[in-house]
């Protein structure tokens, strides 16, 4: 039925000139200039209720998503998905080296959170950072070129997978848990400068047992820092399941005196609503809040972990078939008349093309020149000499 309607539409669209020339009625021209006329502009969705800790009320259980928002979330999540799969490919070809921690499965987290905050807000996360690097504004080609260690990478090839940064995005941090105090520090600066900005401070279920996080909870609550502590619980800290690592796996309660909510991290709208709720809480000056996003990673901990020794293939397959964030969004949009399958397929094709081009750039861009080796040791510093492998080898360091 829809296909027939589309066929009619395309016939109409094909001959706007004829229509105009033939002096056809204005209404026909109007129809012709409105693409996809049978789609709704927005739809209302029921989302899962969040578990609450020390909160009277939580985020709303219904939310409105516009067609435009839906398409944007879809495209962004699909881009991240394909970018991570491309990274997998490049790693197996040994074009990417060292550590590579992939985010596929968790796309709803970074996309949902970014939709809940402003570009002027701040984000810091750990080493599984490619998704946030993209949503914070770094183009795919610069991310892939950083992974392949080229000069066109966002850190000029000097950081690698775990050390990507951009404005209001502080990485990409390799030491588990260390980013949490850093994020509270960014939040302190937000409060200090008084521009109503907040900081999202992310960590995993493994990191949640780090002592410095509890030190940070204490200070953030004491000083009412505008910090959202977000635990991306993907059920495994490397090869250790949450049951084997934590005496309490209710990560949203671990902030104790800090209110918390537990969120379905596979549903981008759930994440968005919870993010908005938490952001408003922080901006109102009430202090920090904890969010646990229940999510899942399809890949192992890193590229050197097949990811099946501590979990079953069946489990992975079950999540993929029942809870995949991109599929969830796609089904929602199609079932609620916000987009067609073909339209979404077109987006898939466009995304694949973008990723291919980015990968092409990442594999052909030259490596950073040797002169770059010792640059940026210091910030804003006159040039100085750096010792190399022996006393006769000297490099110049510029800032």
């Amino acid at each position, binding site marked *: 039925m829809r296909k027939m309607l589309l066929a009619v539409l395309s016939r109409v669209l094909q001959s706007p000139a004829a229509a105009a020339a033939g002096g056809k009625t204005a209404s026909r021209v109007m129809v012709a200039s409105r693409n996809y006329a049978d789609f709704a502009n927005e739809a209302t969705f029921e989302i899962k209720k969040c578990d609450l800790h020390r909160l009277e009320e939580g985020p709303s259980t219904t939310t409105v998503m516009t067609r435009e928002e839906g398409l944007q979330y879809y495209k962004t999540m699909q881009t991240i998905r394909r970018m991570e799969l491309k990274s997998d490919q490049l790693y197996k070809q040994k074009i990417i080296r060292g550590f590579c921690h992939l985010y596929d499965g968790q796309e709803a987290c970074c996309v949902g959170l970014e939709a809940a905050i402003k570009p002027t807000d*701040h984000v*810091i996360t750990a080493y599984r950072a490619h998704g946030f690097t993209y949503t914070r504004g770094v183009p795919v080609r610069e991310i892939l070129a950083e992974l392949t260690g080229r000069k066109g990478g966002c*850190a*000029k090839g*000097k*950081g690698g997978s775990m*050390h990507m*940064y*951009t404005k209001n995005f*502080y*990485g*990409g*941090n*390799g*030491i588990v848990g*260390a980013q*949490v*105090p*850093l*994020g*509270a*520090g*960014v*939040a*302190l*600066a*937000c409060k*200090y*400068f008084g521009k109503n900005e907040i*900081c999202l401070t992310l960590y995993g279920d493994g990191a949640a047992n780090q*002592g*410095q996080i509890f*030190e*940070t909870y*204490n*200070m953030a609550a*004491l*000083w009412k820092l505008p910090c959202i502590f977000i635990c991306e619980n993907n059920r495994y800290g490397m090869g250790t399941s949450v049951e084997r690592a934590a005496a309490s796996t209710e990560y949203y309660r671990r902030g104790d005196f800090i209110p918390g909510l537990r969120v379905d991290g596979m549903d981008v709208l759930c994440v968005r609503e919870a993010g908005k709720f938490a952001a408003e809480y922080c901006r109102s000056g009430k202090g920090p809040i904890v969010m646990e996003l229940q999510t899942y990673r399809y890949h192992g901990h890193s590229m050197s972990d097949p990811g099946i020794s501590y979990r079953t293939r069946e489990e992975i397959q079950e999540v993929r078939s029942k809870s995949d964030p991109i599929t969830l969004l796609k089904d929602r949009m199609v079932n609620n008349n916000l987009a067609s399958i073909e339209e979404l397929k077109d987006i898939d094709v466009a995304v694949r093309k973008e990723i291919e081009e980015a990968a092409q750039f990442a594999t052909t861009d030259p490596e950073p020149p040797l002169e770059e080796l010792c*640059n*940026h*040791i*210091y*910030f*804003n*510093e006159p040039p*100085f000499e*750096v010792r190399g492998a022996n*006393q006769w080898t000297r490099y110049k360091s510029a*800032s």
Partner: protein
Amino acid sequence: MAAATALRQLAPLGARLTRIPPHGRAAGRLLQQQQRRGLRLSAPAAIQVTVRDALNQALDEELERDERVFLLGEEVAQYDGAYKISRGLWKKYGDKRVIDTPISEMGFAGIAVGAAMAGLRPVCEFMTFNFSMQAIDQVINSAAKTCYMSAGLIGVPIVFRGPNGAAAGVAAQHSQCFAAWYGHCPGLKVVSPWSSEDAKGLLKAAIRDDNPVVMLENELLYGVPFELSEQAQSKDFVIPIGKAKIEREGTHITLVSHSRLVGHCLEAASVLAKEGVECEVINMRTIRPMDIEAVEASIVKTNHLITVEGGWPQFGVGAEICARIMEGPAFNYLDAPAVRVTGTDVPMPYAKILEDSSTPQVKDIIFAVKKVLNI
């Protein structure tokens, strides 16, 4: 008033000064008068200032100068500082600029680094650098390396400061010197002041520097008064990081040191001068980047080198100086192997007689000089 009192207590120095300068409103009126007349009637005077007061002045001046500067640490605010370095600052600047932290070194050091990444200029105090070991990951992996890892996108303008090295009778866990530890890492700057002038100038320079600076003070120096020249009293007085100072010129041997032991070297030098040995004493002031050129130039003159430090010998500051001298042009000017005087290679004991043998004494320096010069 404090300056005048201090001056009166120091007879020989007091005799050198022509006039005790007026203070307060009187000084302001005099200055206005002089400015109107286009001349200064009195020679501006040097004053005696303890290292503690010099640090306090530096903090006060920098807090006033730049709104982004703030101080955090244990007991820095309402207690006036565990060693009273931040006395009066909380009262003057309030909760926003001077922050008491809980006993959470790793946490508050990380918070300070994050604040620096986001545009503030924190001064993070460790009650002693022994406790910085709890937070050393934040100092090295978060502060020191971030500018490099981000290819210059994110700077970390932070100062970590506090007492370092041996105090008196505080035993093993509270007496370690971290100069070699922090001096090891690219991305950090490490300074180690001796005099009040060093303390004030280096702290101001450190706060104004856009890079992470570790400032290793010494608790035993806090109460020691030094002369602060008129130039050093200025609100814009900074000492360049990375430049050593020749505290005493000499011709027979070079003594290179940092922090408290510079004083020991000067004492040894005055004892040796009576025997006709003239020591050149260099105060390193900065551990990283090290001013090895100053040491080289001195060796060209004296042909003999002794490094003096409070820290342990293995992989210490002295070891680095000797290695660099060997690798450089000054090696050819050495008439004897370079020698290190260091702390004893043992955890610091408590009993005084043992403690005295665990850290270099003046007699140890004199002994080494005589060995090197074969006298």
